[in-house]
């Protein structure tokens, strides 16, 4: 991109001044931009100008390497010649297509019309509305009846519809040769596909034998969301003298339950009410993106982050984050403090010291035992040990914010980075804080989600020991992949070799399946029945949205079959049910139906429950706190100074979770919200540590600890503590499938099981540069704003003074009215527009995946992302401000701005992109010839070009995921956001049937629909009363790059941070107000 040196307009922003003049940018993409060199060095300038990385040689190589299913260029000419001859001489009409109607059309199906089913995702715990077309689900949306998430879904659930059609799924039962006592897959082993009859025979025989030999049968599953399913498995294992059911997950929250048991005697995970918290402190919990039900959390959190109108009386919650990694939650904090991995307990207790000892909060202030423990954790001592930014003032500020909102505040901690050796102690400290702040029963509901006895790492360790001693006859594994997710030190793989019969119920032939005797095709959750308790008195039903695609059977159904065929002594409920569906119905009749006490028969209740998906009983909304035993505090460890060194923090990436969805290409290509890196994990190193170790981005380092060694590429991440590094789990799968194999590196070896706990973070590691390089595929650097004012953020104090502070409508930034060459557009009917509230946007990326699912956006692969060819129509740009040691973050969702004076429209030689009379910038695929002039001319870089026939990667069943309402684009076609024009057309059809206009709120784009914080608003700006119109006239509203006068139809609302100094906080340091330049 050329720098507009010869811009005729005076009064430009300082950043638009002459090249060669260095002005530190207010918002920056990477720390490089803060150096003068970056803006003046000729070499860097030239490299930066290469926006599209077009090197013809590479392109041809890529065609040959990546697009083997397509045509190489030479073949293309041959085929062109041949097809030309054929069209000319045979003069053929279009190919003959067949229409194959239904034999008996299901009554509810109308071809061409969508049918919605309410169901539930047990993987992420979110209630769903599944859109099906002609019997196949194509898009998942949040169930709007679940009012705690407002119809939102996380990126992982959005993408799970692709898992359903994964062509790498196991289709039939598989039997493997495995010699008991020998580790790993045997060379002489066989792999044969068998039928279910044989499966039932083999398993029944083994179970019958097991009954005779003492009944050592174990069922090992992932954490089950469905209590009914857990009940069935429990009843199944009860049929054996020594049967047991163990559940585990890397993302489980057992430490919270253990701490709760210590402080209140209840082994449960409470429910958090973020929507009620005026002051919020998170110690390592990434609740906005990866911890708990993230969309529900974010929906609640945003309730206290909205600014509606009246600046003078505006209020925002106060939000502090102390964390070792850099998470989405940290990026949204008002004050984020980098800590070392493993400092969570010290932070929590330092805050407790400030509240209880210094401010004499609660009766515990006179409990000498409590005081003596806390005295070791004085804010000054802890801050000095950790090297906190702002020193002790940071802890004091957090404490005072909590104190100021006593009873309406919340302290949370959790997730992998907090699962240190002190994980339970940290949670005890968090319970202490919430107790003295009187948050129990207010922002914390402590009467939900008790853990089952089998949900325990101690039980898992016991199981492994039993397996090792050869005491387990039959092991049935489902919904878990222990051979991958458990660290080698746990000895699971070795233990597995001593088990008589290993049955793995799995959707893929994964790491564990390869070590099992039987691999049974599992159903996807969209093919299965189930239920869940979402909250107190709120239940969700999970129903199949289609019949199983393959010959799959759920574990529950299998257990019912095996229990009977093996002649086990089953419960009456199990005997009465032939399928899990029947069992589930009977269970609901006995429990939820009674709890609801509804009038009408059970069948009526069942039908209506299936229709709505979420059922509420009178219990819903009831809230109660837990008690607190002060004796638990006395057991907390004393303060210990830690040796200098580098501490490792593991975390679960927003896209990858624990790695179960590794074969999902949408998730692999979803850029990480903070680093924007796709397809791999990487070691995040803070800028000062990088300098110390002489590391730059893409350097490969050897990370080692206790004999574990992993090579990882380095990513220099601003805002990471100098003594801490972090890396995501869930990558480095060996047998995930064709997509997931070979993405990133497995770092679970750094975790270990010890004394009933799964410890992930906080251990010391060594980081050694090995002199190799690895090219990480990141997206943000593909587009540089060249230091132009593209985004805006201010503090609450500034907002109160002037809500339009620095938001580009400042007179010195506004261009004088420039005469244009074109006549003005007139919009008589609708005029579509959008607004995006940057204060609410958390950057979670759910919209990116929702858009991908809705609009048939292809996946391009790692190599193509490296050369800037990703296809996402909406991307989340992340900008930093402040110091690289502790930056603030603002997310800018960037999509086609549907400009009134669109620069793309004027350069298209074939009029493939034109302006509609409803304000849409239309892209007509069948007209596009692929000159890419429009892409070159787009100031926002939102036009994406199909360099290859990327759609061909959707092989086999995968192409069933396409949305039939949107054209699948071929090679050589430009595409970009359409404002979901297919949804506009659909809404128009509906409204015309009703004989009126589309009402505000009736029509939602895919990104808007899934946004958990309702940051995106879409509607008719010709309608003065619509929400989007109101947002457009909000004083905070600004247009991105307004100075270039392209007149975007998207208004962004300035991000406002609650950074004003607190009256009694005594934090010396206050952020200087950002000005321009």
């Amino acid at each position, binding site marked *: 991109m050329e720098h507009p040196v010869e811009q005729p307009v005076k009064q430009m922003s300082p950043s638009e001044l002459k090249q060669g003049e260095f002005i530190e940018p207010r918002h920056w993409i990477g720390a490089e931009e803060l150096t003068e060199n970056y803006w003046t060095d000729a070499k860097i300038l030239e490299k930066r100008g290469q926006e599209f990385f077009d090197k013809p040689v590479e392109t041809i190589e890529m065609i040959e390497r990546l697009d083997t299913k397509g045509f190489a260029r030479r073949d293309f000419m041959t085929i*062109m010649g041949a*097809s*030309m*001859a054929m*069209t*000319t001489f045979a003069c053929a*009409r*279009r190919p*003959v*297509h*067949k*229409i*194959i*109607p*239904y*034999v*008996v*059309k299901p009554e509810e199906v*109308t*071809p*061409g*019309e969508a049918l919605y089913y309410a169901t539930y995702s047990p993987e992420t715990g979110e209630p769903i509305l599944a859109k099906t077309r002609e019997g196949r689900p194509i898009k998942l949306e949040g169930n709007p009846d679940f009012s705690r998430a407002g119809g939102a879904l996380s990126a992982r659930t959005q993408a799970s519809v692709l898992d359903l059609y994964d062509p790498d799924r196991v289709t039939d039962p598989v039997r493997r040769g495995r010699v008991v006592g020998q580790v790993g897959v045997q060379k002489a082993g066989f792999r044969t596909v068998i039928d279910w009859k044989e499966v039932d025979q083999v398993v029944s025989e083994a179970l019958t034998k097991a009954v005779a030999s003492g009944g050592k049968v174990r069922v090992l599953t992932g954490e089950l969301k469905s209590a009914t399913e857990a009940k069935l498995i429990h009843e199944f294992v009860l049929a054996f003298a020594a049967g047991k059911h163990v559940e585990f997950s890397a993302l489980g929250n057992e430490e919270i339950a253990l701490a709760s048991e210590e402080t209140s005697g209840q082994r449960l995970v409470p429910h958090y009410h973020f929507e009620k918290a005026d002051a919020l402190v998170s110690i390592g919990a990434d609740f906005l993106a990866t911890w708990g039900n993230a969309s529900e959390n974010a929906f609640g959190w945003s309730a206290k982050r909205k600014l509606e109108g009246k600046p003078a009386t505006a209020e925002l919650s106060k939000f502090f984050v102390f964390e070792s990694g850099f998470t989405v939650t940290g990026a949204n904090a008002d004050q984020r403090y980098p800590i070392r991995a493993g400092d969570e307990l010290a932070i929590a207790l330092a805050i407790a010291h400030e509240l209880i000892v210094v401010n004499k909060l609660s009766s515990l202030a006179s409990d000498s035992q409590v005081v003596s423990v806390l005295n070791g954790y004085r804010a000054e001592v802890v801050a000095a040990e950790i090297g906190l930014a702002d020193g002790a003032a940071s802890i004091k500020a957090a404490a005072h914010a909590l104190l100021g909102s006593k009873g309406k505040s919340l302290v949370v901690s959790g997730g992998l980075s907090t699962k240190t050796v002190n994980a339970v102690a940290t949670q005890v400290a968090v319970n202490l804080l919430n107790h003295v702040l009187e948050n129990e029963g207010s922002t914390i509901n402590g009467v939900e989600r008790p853990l089952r006895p089998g949900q325990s790492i101690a039980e898992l360790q016991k199981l492994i020991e039993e397996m090792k001693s050869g005491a387990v006859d039959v092991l049935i594994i489902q919904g878990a992949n222990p051979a991958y997710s458990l660290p080698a030190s746990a000895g699971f793989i070795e233990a597995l070799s001593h088990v008589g019969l290993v049955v793995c119920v799995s959707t893929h032939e994964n790491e564990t399946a390869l070590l099992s005797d039987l691999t049974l095709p599992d159903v996807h959750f969209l093919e299965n029945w189930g239920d869940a308790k979402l909250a107190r008195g709120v239940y969700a039903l999970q129903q199949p949205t289609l019949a199983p695609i393959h010959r799959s059977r759920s574990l529950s159904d299998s257990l019912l079959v095996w229990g009977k065929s093996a002649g086990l002594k089953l419960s009456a409920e199990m005997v009465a049910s032939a399928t899990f569906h029947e069992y589930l119905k009977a269970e609901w009749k006995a429990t939820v139906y009674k709890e609801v006490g509804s009038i009408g028969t059970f069948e009526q209740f069942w039908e209506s429950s299936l229709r709505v998906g979420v059922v509420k009983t009178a219990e819903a909304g009831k809230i109660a706190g837990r008690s607190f035993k002060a004796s638990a505090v006395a057991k907390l460890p004393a303060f210990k100074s830690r040796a200098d060194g580098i501490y490792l923090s593991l975390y679960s990436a927003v896209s990858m979770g624990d790695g179960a969805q590794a074969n999902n290409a949408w998730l692999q290509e979803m850029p990480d919200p903070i680093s924007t890196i796709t397809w791999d994990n990487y070691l995040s190193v803070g800028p000062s540590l990088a300098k110390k170790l002489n590391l730059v981005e893409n350097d490969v380092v050897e990370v080692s600890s206790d004999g574990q060694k992993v090579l990882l590429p380095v990513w220099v991440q601003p805002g990471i503590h100098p003594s801490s590094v972090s890396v995501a789990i869930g990558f480095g799968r060996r047998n995930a499938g064709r997509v997931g194999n070979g993405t990133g590196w497995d770092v679970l070896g750094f975790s270990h099981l010890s004394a009933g706990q799964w410890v992930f973070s906080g251990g010391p590691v060594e980081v050694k540069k090995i002199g190799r390089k690895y090219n990480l595929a990141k997206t943000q650097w593909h587009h540089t704003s060249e230091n132009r004012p593209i985004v805006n953020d201010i503090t609450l104090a500034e907002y109160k003074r002037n809500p339009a502070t620095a938001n580009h409508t400042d007179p010195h930034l506004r261009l004088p009215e420039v005469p244009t060459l074109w006549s003005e557009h007139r919009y008589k009917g609708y005029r579509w527009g959008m607004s995006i509230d940057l204060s609410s946007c958390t950057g979670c990326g759910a919209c990116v995946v929702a858009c991908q699912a809705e609009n048939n956006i292809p996946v391009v692969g790692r190599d193509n992302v490296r050369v800037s060819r990703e296809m996402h129509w909406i991307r989340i740009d992340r900008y930093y401000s402040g110091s690289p040691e502790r930056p603030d973050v603002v997310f800018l969702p960037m999509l086609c701005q549907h400009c009134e004076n669109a620069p793309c429209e004027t350069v298209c030689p074939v009029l493939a992109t*034109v302006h*509609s*009379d*409803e304000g*849409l910038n*239309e892209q*007509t*695929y*069948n*007209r596009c010839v692929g000159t890419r002039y429009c892409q070159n001319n787009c100031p926002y870089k939102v036009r994406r070009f199909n360099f290859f026939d990327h759609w061909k990667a959707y092989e086999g069943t995968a192409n069933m995921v396409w949305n039939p*309402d*949107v*054209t*699948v684009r071929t090679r050589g076609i430009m595409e970009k956001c*359409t404002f979901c*024009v*297919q949804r506009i*057309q659909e809404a128009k*059809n509906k409204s*015309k*049937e009703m004989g009126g206009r589309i009402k505000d709120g009736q029509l939602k784009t895919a990104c808007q629909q899934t946004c958990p914080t309702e940051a995106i608003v879409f509607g008719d700006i010709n309608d003065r009363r619509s929400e989007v119109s109101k947002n457009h006239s909000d004083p905070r509203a600004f247009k991105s790059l307004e100075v270039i006068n392209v007149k975007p139809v998207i208004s962004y609302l300035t991000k406002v941070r609650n950074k004003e100094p607190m009256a009694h906080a005594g934090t010396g340091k206050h952020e200087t107000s950002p000005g321009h330049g």
Partner: protein
Amino acid sequence: MVSSQLKLGLGLGLAFFVLGAGAFSYFPNVSNQDYEPEQPMPFSHKIHAGDNKIACMYCHSAPEKSRHSTIPSMNVCMNCHTVVKADSPYIKKLQEYYKEGRSIEWVRVHELPDYVYFPHKRHLARGLVCLDCHGDVKTMERVYQFSPLTMGWCIDCHRGKTTPKTVVAQMFPGKKNYQGPVATVNCSACHF
């Protein structure tokens, strides 16, 4: 010896032929008007819709509520043909298919490219009738494509040039002999 003029002529002719063929293959925008493929079963619309006056939408259900006007499922055929003409060899075949749970693979007559979204329901709601685009199907022994179904043909109607008078009158009740456009010609009306 071939004269240089002849050479030039031949060369030019070849060049035009190649260019023309190229253009033809690149823009396969030829109309399929009058396309009348043979069907796997000699279904006669004349007998069904003409002689027996069965309404179009008895079999082709849902054009008023969907994008598509569908080919009837086998159970619709069997509504009558369990009894009617049950001894005909074709009907026997039909019944056999139905019992086996198989479907008849009809050859598609009316087809728009994948990048065109044509909703039947919007057009029916405006007062167009089947006949306007599909021709007088009730006289057809074997169905053929009556209209060109090209983009120009669509646009002409949207601009009001070829719109049936009844439709115009219904849309603009106050205006006699209205001549202007009747529907949108935005690209995104049909292409997305």
